[in-house]
């Protein structure tokens, strides 16, 4: 019997720096598997964000650029406009994409830029140490909302997939999660669909992935999954928000 499970070619052998129970590793692997399956590794450029995934390029075996905080969609625009033949994706967290980079993602989506954004939403800033994000839940305690997020002062959590789907430009916008095996399979399908639309030159695509941050939530990985199920998924509903016409 041959090998049935191996490291994707698009994934490097480097040891991860991510915390135990963090879902970045799973999402990295899904991207790598999809890139292998589509045979596009040598034609792909990834863009790392500022955040925990700033070192994402250490885990992939294709070209990478490193963006400033929130600016990955503008960089991806620059690449796709001058090299439409390249497969380009941004990998961004919720502080990066939904806060400082909101302008860049909205306008890239609205122009219908033909790249893919993988948006990892874990309702908190990770790398800077667990501060409140635009996606932080009401009453959720973070290091900058120590009494819980006060929505009277900071508004309601932003549903990025819903927001982008409201634009009139054609796009593929979906929200998935990776907390259960069946969700992981669905997320992989969504990433493959997004890259496929890009390869066909169809539209902008974004896969929002509801994720965990056990370290900054102050939970064990198992508790973090339970908390995601109980608190994030009822608000951040899963599913396709927009598919291209």
């Amino acid at each position, binding site marked *: 019997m041959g090998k049935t499970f191996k490291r994707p070619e698009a994934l490097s052998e480097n040891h991860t720096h991510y915390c135990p129970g963090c879902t970045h590793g799973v999402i990295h692997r899904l991207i790598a598997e999809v890139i292998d399956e589509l045979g596009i590794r040598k034609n792909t450029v990834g863009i790392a964000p500022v955040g925990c995934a700033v070192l994402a390029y250490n885990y992939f075996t294709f070209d990478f650029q490193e963006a*400033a905080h929130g600016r990955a969609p*503008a*960089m991806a*625009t620059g690449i796709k406009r001058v090299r439409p033949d*390249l497969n380009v994706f941004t990998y961004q967290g919720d502080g990066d994409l939904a806060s400082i980079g909101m302008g860049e993602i909205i306008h890239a989506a609205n122009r219908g830029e033909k790249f893919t954004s993988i948006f990892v939403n874990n309702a908190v800033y990770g790398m800077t140490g667990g501060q409140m994000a635009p996606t932080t839940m009401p009453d959720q305690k973070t290091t900058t909302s120590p009494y819980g997020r006060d929505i009277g002062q900071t508004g309601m959590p932003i549903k990025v997939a819903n927001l982008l789907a409201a634009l009139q430009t054609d796009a593929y916008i979906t929200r998935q999660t990776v907390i259960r095996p069946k969700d992981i399979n669905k997320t992989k399908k969504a990433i493959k669909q997004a890259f496929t639309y890009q390869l066909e030159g169809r539209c902008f695509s974004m896969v929002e992935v509801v994720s965990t941050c056990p370290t900054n939530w102050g939970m064990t990985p198992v508790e973090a999954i339970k908390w995601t199920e109980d608190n994030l998924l009822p608000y951040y509903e899963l599913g396709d928000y927009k598919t291209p016409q």
Partner: protein
Amino acid sequence: MGKILMKGNEAIGEAAIRAGCLNYFAYPITPQSEVAEYLARRMPEVNGVFLQGESEVAVGYMIFGASACGERVFTTSSSPGVSLMSEAISYIAGAQCPAVFVNIIRGGPGLGGILPSQADYFQATKGGGHGDYRLLVMAPASVQEAVEMVMKAFPLAEKYRNPVMILGDGLIGQMMEPVEFPEDLRTEPSNKDEWATNGMSTRGDDKQNLVKSLYLDPTALNDHNLLLKSKYDQMKKEEVLYEPVNMDTDYKALIVSYGTMSRVCKSAVAMLKEEGIEVGMIRPQTLFPFPEKAIADAAEKSSCKIILSIEMSMGQMVEDVERCVKGKLPVSWYGKCGGDVPSPEEIMDVVKERI
């Protein structure tokens, strides 16, 4: 091809195309919006890329993304817009990518005004963005020179893998002058396969290219900054450009002036000469690297009593002039920074008064 009459901003756009740069991203701002308007028409004719970004912040990163792929790319803006692009400029310099930025300066600070100014001298030559980086900065004094500098800027950016800035005041962008375009630039960006994220299949290799500016290890970051410094030191050795005016005389005063201001000073030097007053002038064409040696040598002249830095700013370049003169002669500043360009008569009076 003979001379044609062109507005500075449009000539800058055309010069980039003739330098083989078919990628332009920009955001409108007075007094340089004509570059974007010109290229919005012109780029489709040459199968080039024209994109109006949502902000100068975003445009800076569109430039970064495109340049990181090894493609020739440029943008134009004016002072407040360049402030917004300065974040990206720092990243581009840190990540060692070539790109060309044109700043058609307007008055500041803040919204300032829309008339010509040279008040972005510090921003262009001393930083603007964060961190230890420099731009190679060229300052044209005519539309013709703006065209030549834009066409030189691309190979220089590629030679150093560093952003190059063309620093023109509003007048350079707005005035019409006869222009003769040099031969089209036919060279390609060189050695890009060694560093550019242009896709492994494009290069035919299996090695990841990485464009980044993050070095968490203190030794690695220090080494990286030393490498950047070595490029800036090389620029100081190889790229200094300046024009000497009336320097073979026993000049009593030396004027240092650049851009539009230097044209007025040149007229004043000629008019003073007619009155029997010899004044020498050095016109820096590169502001970084600065013509340090030329100014230091000029200050050694025994007939020279004073050095005047004349600029359309409240005394920015004067600090560099003082640095070169090293206290050997008095260094004096004169300038205006509201949008009016001082007249030759005004400069003559200043020289006579301070000699």
